[in-house]
C-alpha cells in the first residue's frame, strides 16, 4: 500500500509525465486552450492509460515473457492502445455527444499520445507488478490532466495579455511550460529516497 501511494505521489507531482518526461506534449500544446476540453481530454487519457498499462502488463507477463517474444513488445503494446482508443471513442460518441464534439480530432490522436505507450514502456523497465502498473498508469493520467488544466487556465488569462507577435502561440506556451517545470521541480524534495 505504501509503495502504491509513493508511486502515485511521485508520478503526479515529482516525475510528472508532461513536465519531466515530455510525454503527451502534442495534446498539451494543442487542446489546452479551454478548461472544459482540457478536463475531458484528461479524463479520456487517464481512463485509457490505466487500462492500457494494466492490459499491457498482463500480455507482457503471461504471453510475451513465457514465449520469449519480447521482440514483438512494441507492436503488441501499440495494438492494445489503438483498440482501446477505438472502444473509448465509440463509448463517448454514444453517451456524451457534447464531449465528443469538443474533443473532436484529439480523440483518435490519443493513439499517438506518447504518454500512453510511454507508461507501458516505463512499466516494463521499472519491473512493476500488476497493481503497481495500474496505479502507475492512473497517476500518470492524473498528472497529465493536472498540468493540462493548469495550462488551460494560464492560457485563458494570457489571451488578454499584450505579447510580442513572434511569441504568440506555441513559443509562449513552451516558455510557460518551462516555468511550470521549474515550479514542479520544487516538489522533488517531497519524497526522500
Amino acid at each position, binding site marked *: 500500500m505504501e509503495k502504491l501511494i509513493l508511486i502515485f505521489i511521485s508520478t503526479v507531482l515529482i516525475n510528472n509525465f508532461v513536465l519531466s*518526461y*515530455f*510525454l503527451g506534449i502534442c495534446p498539451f500544446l494543442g487542446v489546452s486552450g479551454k478548461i472544459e476540453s482540457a478536463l475531458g481530454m484528461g479524463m479520456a487519457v487517464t481512463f485509457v492509460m490505466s487500462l492500457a498499462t494494466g492490459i499491457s502488463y498482463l500480455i507482457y507477463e503471461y504471453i510475451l515473457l513465457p514465449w520469449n517474444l519480447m521482440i514483438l513488445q512494441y507492436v503488441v503494446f501499440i495494438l492494445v492502445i489503438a483498440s482501446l482508443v477505438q472502444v473509448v471513442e465509440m463509448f463517448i460518441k454514444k453517451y456524451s455527444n457534447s464531449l465528443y464534439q469538443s474533443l473532436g480530432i484529439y480523440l483518435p490522436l490519443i493513439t499517438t499520445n506518447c504518454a500512453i505507450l510511454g507508461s507501458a514502456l516505463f512499466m516494463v523497465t521499472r519491473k512493476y507488478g500488476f497493481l503497481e502498473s495500474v496505479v502507475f498508469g492512473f497517476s500518470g493520467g492524473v498528472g497529465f490532466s493536472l498540468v493540462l488544466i493548469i495550462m488551460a487556465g494560464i492560457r485563458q488569462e494570457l489571451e488578454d495579455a499584450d505579447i510580442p507577435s513572434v511569441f504568440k502561440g506555441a513559443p509562449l506556451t513552451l516558455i510557460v511550460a518551462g516555468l511550470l517545470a521549474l515550479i514542479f521541480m520544487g516538489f522533488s524534495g517531497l519524497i526522500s529516497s
Partner: protein
Amino acid sequence: MKKEFLKGLWNQHPVFRQLLGMCPTLAVTTSAKNGLSMGLAVVFVLFFSSLVVALIKQIVPHQVRIAVYTVIIATFVTIVDTFMRAQFPAISQALGPYLPLIIVNCIILGRCEAFASKNGVAVSLLDALGMGLGFTWGLFVLGSVREFFGTGSILSIRIMPAGYDPLVAMILPAGAFLVLGLLVALMNRIEEWKS
C-alpha cells in the same frame, strides 16, 4: 520534386514550424550527440515507413489504415532499436524509452497519412528524407544550445573557459521547454524579417 525535399528543411520544418514530434525533441536533446542520434533514427524509420506505405496504399482498406501504418512503423522501430542496442549500447542507454517512442512520433504517422498514402513512391521518399533531415538539424541545434549552456561544451568539446559556471537548468526538463520556445520565436522573427 526538389520542392518536396526542401520544404521539410525550412518552410514546413517539423520541429520549429509544425511543432510535431515534441516528445523526443524535448527529451533527448540534453546533448548535441543524443539529438543527432535520435534524428538519424527517425530518418531511417520515416524513410522506410514512407516507402512501404507508398507501395501498399492501394491495397489497405481505408478504415484500418492508421492501425496498419502504426504496425509498419513499429516494425521499423523494432529494427532500429535492436540494431542500436547491439551496435551502440551507450547511445541506446542514453535514449532509453524514447527510442521505442518513435512509434508514436506524430511526424512519422503524419507524413505517412498526409503524404505517402496519397503520392507516388519517389516523391514520398524525397518528402520523408527532407522531413527527417529537417528534424535532425532541429534536434542537433536544440541539443547544441542546451549542451553549450548546461555544460559549457558542444559534442563534448569544451568551449567555455574552465571558470564557467554551467546553467544546470538548461539540461533539466525546464531548459528544454525554454530553449525550444525561444528557438521557435527566433524562427518566427526570421520569417518576419524575410517578408
